[in-house]
């Protein structure tokens, strides 16, 4: 398999979370590495002074990493679904709640990274482009309407891994996400599209991994934050300034 074929396999089939900084010759020779990670997360979306939505999401993340002499290429994918609760108000100001609305979350990322070892620590810098989509199916409620949130962003991240005793390894990561554009579609007045900008996100994660010859297993708590500025006004409607927090726990199987 040549370089282009290997990269094509990653791009077409892959997607996920995590990442191994140690781009050794062995890794380059063994070809792509895959990660599959079932996950559970607590999700909370807030429009301060207007409403909040929160609940548990269940999902899976898949990734494929190709190690090359000039860096690594990685495709991340994550899909999660769950039931969430709304707490806000009606348009006449009456307090209103809804329980059990379905939310779908999709994350796709294409990353390039460069690693460098320093005294027992394997460090990785990465950058790329990401898409985050969230569908909130509140239209099942008589007073509700569906919403779709789309973010295209530029992720910039650092990770570092350190070998511990007994085939254990610990990793710590941080990431800054710069929003390139946010597109919010709301099911009001025959559909309203609002453009959101500026905005940013941040991620932090810890990974405790047990390494083995055939496959590695890791547990990884993770937190993601988004802050998005008020949108433009479209047909008289606007999306207010908002923020999202997601606390996630993943079990990562890498092979």
């Amino acid at each position, binding site marked *: 398999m040549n370089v282009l074929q290997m990269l094509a396999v990653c791009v077409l089939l892959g997607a996920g979370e995590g990442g191994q900084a140690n781009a050794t010759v062995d890794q380059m020779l063994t070809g792509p590495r895959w990660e599959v990670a079932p996950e559970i997360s607590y999700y909370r979306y807030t429009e301060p002074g207007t409403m909040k939505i929160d609940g548990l999401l269940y999902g899976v993340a898949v990734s494929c990493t190709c190690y090359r002499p000039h860096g690594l290429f990685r495709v991340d994918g994550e899909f999660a679904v769950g039931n969430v609760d709304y707490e806000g108000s009606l*348009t006449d100001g009456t307090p209103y709640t809804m329980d059990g609305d379905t939310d779908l979350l999709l994350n796709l990322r294409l990353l390039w990274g460069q690693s460098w070892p320093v005294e027992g620590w394997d460090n990785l810098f990465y950058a790329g482009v990401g898409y985050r989509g969230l569908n909130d*199916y509140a*239209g099942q409620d008589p007073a509700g*309407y569906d919403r779709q949130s789309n973010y295209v962003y530029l992720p910039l991240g650092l990770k570092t891994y350190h070998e511990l005793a007994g085939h254990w390894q610990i990793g710590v990561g941080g990431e800054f996400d710069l929003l390139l554009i946010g597109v919010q579609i709301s099911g009001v*007045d025959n559909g*309203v599209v*609002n453009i959101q900008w500026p905005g940013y996100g941040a991620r932090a994660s810890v990974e405790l991994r047990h390494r083995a010859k055939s496959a590695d297993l890791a547990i990884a708590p993770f937190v993601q934050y988004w802050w998005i500025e008020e949108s433009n006004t479209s047909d008289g409607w*606007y999306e207010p300034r908002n923020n999202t927090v997601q606390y996630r726990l993943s079990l990562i199987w890498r092979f």
Partner: protein
Amino acid sequence: MDEVLPAADVATGRRVCGRKQAFAGGIGHFGVAR
């Protein structure tokens, strides 16, 4: 029921997404009335 705009929007008349519809029936998937 009358719509009551948040105080910050009274002057502009803008309507904030996030508040739900104050009438029965609502709005279906992405604006398809039902």
